[in-house]
């Protein structure tokens, strides 16, 4: 193209520019082989840690469709960290907790995680929420060597492959073991039920289905899937009705609990509902029900009465539980406006576990040290969880079990003791660790293990 130009001035300018650049050039590169990835942990000065502070971060949907309920989790975690800070922090260090909004959009998750890791230089990511969102950043966090603790999602990918993601730890029971325990309960107690599955069409539904089918493959008459974001679940519920399912095992988020209930009302479909833990928060579903139906259905904590579900930490429906009493105290002292909710309890519970991890890692806090400490002592940690964690060098999966409950008057009534298991063919057994009967220490702050 340049040859067509009559005047050679632009060419001269280009050449001059190139000359200028090369004149300021720095000569050859010393080959240190390292692509530039710094901060792989180690060393006495871990990023985000100073003499008197530890900076950690998290991504949550604070705005948008996924925000109701989920945006309360970080307020709970923050209240607990403030509570610990007020008692002197962890090894004299105050915890600074930064929360960024990703609107449940993986593109945003990627950019806010960049901000947290590269700009704010957080020591660790704690409780980042969502399967599609967090899977956008899990490689990045592991490449950078940032501990990625207690992902707020039950997908298997946070813990079943520590070789590939050595810095990532799950927290809540994964969806597969939840599916297994539900499947076994149904197979033993309702052997004649015609089972329909209502599944979210991603890891959540897939992992759960894998677990359920281990026990119920014969009994399942239909499996319907919905795509998160599409609010019309009419065809799926009608499909379950047409297949004659009289027990629906639903693995969905709270909005879809409300939607499926409304559609079932419309169709005159009355099966026994069994919602997995994620979608069964009675208060939130109640308020969603009255909002979606524009007041036609009366919401309230009683809206899910008669529904079966599971639980793995004590919630606000058990005000006498010592852990819930601690959470209530923390919320009264350090919380924002509003009531203590199950989502805030969830946030406080994983904040508690993170404080335990920090204590286990000791005074000389490093990123690799934190991961090693968690692998070493993680399985023995006390805490609000009803069953112990499964953390070890081979598994970064979280809580190992849960119990089946039926909701009556907005509160869960136990149908089984706490059952524990692991992914794959592992047996389901009654938990004998005594985790569900323990109480927090007097101070409300964990002691170093």
């Amino acid at each position, binding site marked *: *193209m340049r040859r067509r*130009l*009559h*005047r050679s*001035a*632009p060419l001269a*300018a*280009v050449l001059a*520019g190139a000359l200028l*650049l*090369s004149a*300021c*050039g*720095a*000569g*050859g*590169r010393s080959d*240190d082989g*390292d*692509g*530039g*990835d710094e901060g792989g942990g180690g060393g006495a000065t871990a990023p985000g840690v100073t003499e008197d502070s530890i900076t950690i971060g998290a991504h949550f949907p*604070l*705005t948008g469709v996924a925000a109701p309920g989920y*945006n309360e989790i*970080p*307020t709970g975690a*923050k209240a607990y960290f403030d509570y610990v800070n007020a008692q002197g922090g962890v090894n004299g260090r105050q915890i600074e907790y930064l*929360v*960024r*909004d990703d609107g*449940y*959009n*993986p*593109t945003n998750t*990627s*950019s806010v995680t*960049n*901000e947290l*890791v*590269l*700009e704010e230089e957080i020591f660790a990511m704690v409780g980042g929420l969502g*399967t*599609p969102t967090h*899977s*956008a950043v899990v*490689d*990045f966090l592991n490449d950078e060597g940032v501990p990625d603790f207690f992902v707020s999602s039950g997908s298997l990918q946070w813990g079943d492959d520590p070789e590939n993601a050595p810095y990532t730890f799950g927290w809540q029971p994964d969806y597969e073991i939840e599916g297994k325990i539900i499947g076994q309960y149904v197979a033993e107690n309702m052997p004649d039920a015609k089972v329909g599955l209502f599944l979210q*069409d*991603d*890891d959540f539904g897939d992992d759960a289905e894998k677990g359920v089918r281990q026990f119920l493959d014969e009994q399942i008459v239909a499996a319907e899937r919905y*795509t*998160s*974001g599409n609010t019309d679940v009419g065809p799926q519920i009608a499909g379950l009705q047409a297949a004659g399912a009289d027990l629906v095992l639903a693995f969905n988020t709270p909005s879809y609990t409300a939607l499926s209930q409304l559609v079932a009302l419309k169709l005159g479909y009355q099966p026994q509902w069994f919602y997995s833990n994620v979608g069964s928060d009675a208060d939130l579903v109640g308020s969603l029900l009255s909002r979606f139906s524009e007041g036609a259905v009366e919401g309230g904590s009683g809206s899910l009465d008669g529904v079966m579900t599971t639980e793995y930490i004590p919630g606000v429906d058990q005000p006498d539980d010592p852990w819930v009493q601690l959470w209530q105290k923390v919320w009264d002292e350090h919380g*924002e406006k509003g009531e203590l909710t199950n989502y805030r309890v969830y946030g406080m519970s994983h904040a508690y576990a993170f404080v335990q991890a920090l204590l286990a890692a000791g005074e000389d806090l490093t990123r690799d040290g934190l991961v090693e400490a968690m692998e070493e002592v993680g399985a023995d940690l006390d805490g609000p969880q009803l069953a112990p964690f499964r953390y070890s060098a081979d598994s970064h999966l979280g809580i190992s079990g849960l119990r089946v409950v039926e909701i009556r008057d907005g509160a869960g009534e136990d149908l089984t003791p706490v059952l524990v298991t692991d992914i794959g063919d592992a047996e389901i057994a009654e938990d004998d660790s005594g985790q569900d009967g323990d109480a927090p220490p007097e101070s409300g702050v964990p002691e170093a293990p």
Partner: protein
Amino acid sequence: MATALRRGRTWWAGSVLGRHLLVALLGLVVVVVVLESASDFRNLQLASMAYLGIAAGGLTVLTGLNGQISLGHGALMAIGAYTTALLLDDRDAGTPLPLVVLAAVAVTLLVGAVVGAAAARLHGPYLAGATLALAVAVPGIALYFKEQLGGEQGLRVVLPDIPTWVLDLAFFVTGQDLTRSRYVACLAWLTLIVTFVLLANLSRTRVGRRWRAVRDDEVAAELAGIRLGRARVSAFVVSAAAAGAAGAMMAITVRLAAPSGFTITLSLTLLTAVVLGGLGSLGGALLGAALLTFLPQVVTDLGVDAGLSDIQAAELAPLVYGLVMVVVVLVAPAGLVGTARTALLRRRLQRAGTGTSTSTSTDTAAPTSTSTTSKGTTT
């Protein structure tokens, strides 16, 4: 001094390509200096700005110069991004990056040609509706072909290792080792510069004049021998190709191609970037992209510093963005760059005295384009 300037002006004003290349070279130098001094995080933010800028640049050519509106550019970006993700699915995928980007552009270009052929038959709201359907449908395709396209969780993108010669070159020029973030930012900005040079050049040639003629008066254009359909399709195809390049850069920057990244919001976001900056102006598109990238974070940080809770601060960002949008439309209806340019022209005219100067700027388009599309539909 003044004569020297004027003489200096004549040699480069003589050739459009030469002038654009010179601006591009200056831009390149500025980009290298800025990327070099910015932190890793800023580099990634600048990369986001670049991919939004590329897509907005393509859209501003379509809307500003050809008078077609598209609410589906987010979907075209998705096609570019998914092509990239399929080619870069693991570390030893082996496809060289320039080829990947070209493939993304080519696939999007094909889709753009098909959509453009349909779009060329439509006007105003009908065209908006058709492209809107595209924006809604394309993410659905990724959900339907779950096995191949990863469903809701999308496909991960693995950036291949940086070639050694690039590392050497980067060290030679800057004296620092090239980090991955900086590499991504350099790629994105290089693509932006190349795309903008091509777009700017194209809009100054016969093709661009045809686009404008079609935009301004269809009947007159047809009388002058311009085939309307061909002009419209070519504008759409060029614009789609830019969106494809933007999608490729987005996939590389975000390391993921997932349907939730390409919702209708993205398409509308691009349109707002174009409107904020000024229809038909590439500089405006870049300015709009900069606002989109930096405003939310700045506002959120200000909110947190002012003592708002995290949730309130997060809600502040879209509010302020909306307010900025309203203010710009009220105060500067031709967009920021468009209005600034009109003001500059007016002042120059005043200084030169009325009547002597006829140096018209070709790109100030916003008000005329909207009035003429409605004129066009009456035929």
